[in-house]
């Protein structure tokens, strides 16, 4: 199958070239490789590039600033139910929250107090606000097992 091999080599080398070009472009551009971390991991690291951070919206922290086309809120590491008992009223507790500024008003339908969300964007300086370009909320009713487990406990 020397002819077949020729074709294979041709196609593979073209694709390899494409892959190389693409990975190069992706490293620089937005929407390419993104770190995915939970809030705890993110706070501990000093990532300043693009990141996806997983957390829960702090109850009562959502501020819709319509004139500025912004939604501001804070993220916490663990779900709201768990936090209710020992609500972080101390400044130390608040410090573990991540303030998020989302430049847009079109938050997902499931975005609300206590929602499990993933924010995508970047932090300009360590300890500063997280500038989100995208906010994703998870479908709660499909987490039937997880939901019923935590409710029964």
């Amino acid at each position, binding site marked *: *199958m020397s*002819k*077949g091999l*020729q*074709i*294979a080599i041709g*196609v*593979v080398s073209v*694709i390899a070239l*494409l*892959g190389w070009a*693409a990975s190069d*472009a*992706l490293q620089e*551009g*937005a*929407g*390419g*490789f*993104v*770190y*995915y*971390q939970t809030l705890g991991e993110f706070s501990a690291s000093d990532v300043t590039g693009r990141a*996806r951070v997983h957390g829960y919206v702090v109850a009562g922290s959502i501020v*819709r600033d*319509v004139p500025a*086309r912004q939604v501001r809120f804070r993220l916490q590491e663990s779900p709201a139910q768990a936090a209710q008992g020992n609500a972080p009223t101390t400044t130390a507790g608040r410090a573990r929250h991540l303030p998020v500024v989302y430049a*847009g*008003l*079109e*938050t*997902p*339908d*499931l975005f*609300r107090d206590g929602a499990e969300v*993933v924010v995508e964007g970047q932090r300009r300086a360590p300890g500063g606000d997280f500038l989100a370009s995208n906010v*994703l909320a*998870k*479908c*709660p*009713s*499909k*987490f*039937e*097992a*997880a939901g*019923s487990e935590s409710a029964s406990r």
Partner: protein
Amino acid sequence: MSDLGFYALRLALGVATLGLVAGVAAGVTQRSDWAEVARRATLIQFALLCLALLSLFVAFYRLDFELAYVATNAARSMPLPYRLAALWGGQAGSLLLWCWMLAAYSAAAVTVNRRNTRLLPWVSAMLCGNVLFFLLLLNFVANSNPFETLPPQAVMSDGSGLNPLLQHPVMLIHPLMLYTGLTGFAVPFAFAFAAMASNELGSDWLRITRRWTLFAWCFLSIGILLGGRWAYEVLGWGGYWAWDPVENASLMPWIAATAYLHSVMVQEKRDMLKIWNLLLIGLTYTLCLFGTMLTRSGLVRSVHAFAQTEIFGQLFLGYLLLVAALFFGLLVWRSPRLRAQNQLESVLSREAGFLVNNWLFMALLGVVLTGTMFPKLSEWLEGVERSVGPAFFNLLGAPIGLALLLLTGVAPLFAWRRATKARLLGQLLWPTISFVVAAATLSFVLRERFAWLAILTWSLGVFVTTTIIQEYARALRARMRHGEGPARAIANLFRKNQRRYGGYIVHLGMVFLFVGFAGAAFNQELLENLRVGESLSHGDYRLEYRSARAIEAQHYGGAEARLALFEAGEPRAIMRPERRVYWLEEQPVSIPSIFSTLMEDLYLVLTAVEADGSATFKLYRNPLVNWIWIGGLTFVLGTLLVMWPFRAGRAGGGASAPPSAF
């Protein structure tokens, strides 16, 4: 009634085991009585699963809230169609639906091919084995049995309702189509397995697997398209495809099956690529299982994933590896008998075209698989989880997709074995001219918003369409020279060579799809906060916010905004985006309003009603999206033409096409 379902599932376990054992025994000993036991077990197992499915439907109809599954997925206020469709709204019920479909396919396969006595024992063994695994999950894994009852003190008078996002007409059929596609690949897999196990490596299994693959592939295509349509009309982010792991999970088997449907022709005509074809069949079904595992085990994070249970994922992985090891092990063992007799004679030949096609499909599969698994891969390799966005898939997928599109036009012009250059150049003359004209025209028209990738895609679309028209014209002219009228010539064209000319229609559907995909290069969006009486403008369009009213439905409430759409000052339509809150599920949902033309869609979302009484709207202007649905319909029409039993009267024999009524 639900007890009936519970015990039917238990009983089916025994029957499926019997089918598996009897099938293997019949395969090994060649005894026909064992084969008959296996065949009947396959039918009885289907009957039992019908009983289970039916009793679950009844439970949803009667709202038996003592069943945990009904209580978490249905509610009294839900309209009946959604209450019944709630059956596949969650993990356990969709697993039952999956298992039922597998059993239905198994019963159909052993009935349609019952005279094929050499292959049948192994076919029923493999299919019963598959059903058995799903029955084990349904019966014994937590949260997977839809007939699990709640303790009496936990039974409520109403359920918690179905996820509102799933309460949409498309969701009534999308999962059905998708599952009909995905489970359907079990049949070709079983036949290929049986051919290798029984050493019957003639042409029988090939004909059978091709037909069943085509059937399943058609439904999978419909399922994927409907999924896109649902996302577009419900999720409200203005798009139809997000390269989410759950979407990719259904796309990967489709890619492998598409590659197989092309390369199988090389085996039929030239008796080559046997090992490769078997590999593709194995890959297709393995990817179906892999995708199911991905969506149901929470291995990869997704916005749409089902509940995460670790044990489920581990069991599934074990099963997947077992099935794959059996199939591919057998393939290695039989490979000496599968060596090709013929060699590739020229790079300019149809078979070479198919070969390139297959390599490209494999590359595409590689891209989708890598992107989907990237979070896991990077976690294993680097210890840090990184994910890739749609840009990764688009950037790498687009060139491969365009190369495939080009091939769609060129490859059918190649002759088998060796194409003559002069003839080929003659056939490429008009398509090339039309390509150049299209590229020049589009470049000129779009000179202010130049997007070369979109222009290339559309020009290639024109190129491919010209080759298809040319092929039809050539064949029809030849027929009409022999005295056939135009209508009769078209009918005969399909009767004599339905695969070729139906295939061209499928290709035309692909062209339309690509036309629609490329439109995304010109997508625009606009966010605006309006008070009643104010307007937003975009290009020629102006949307005037007229009024808002409260929605009062049984199951949800919310607001509906009414906006008048003007195009160049002329009134065109009233758009009514809604923002609903489903009471029971405490979930808000935005229902976009879409004004759709062949050129573009205006997609309007009521993002929020603000505290000060104003409303925030998001407007998306998406060119050419309609061509995706048109392409999808054309595609399905083409597939039906390929599958249609035009010569049913003369076919007969052991291996006729799968039943078209399903």
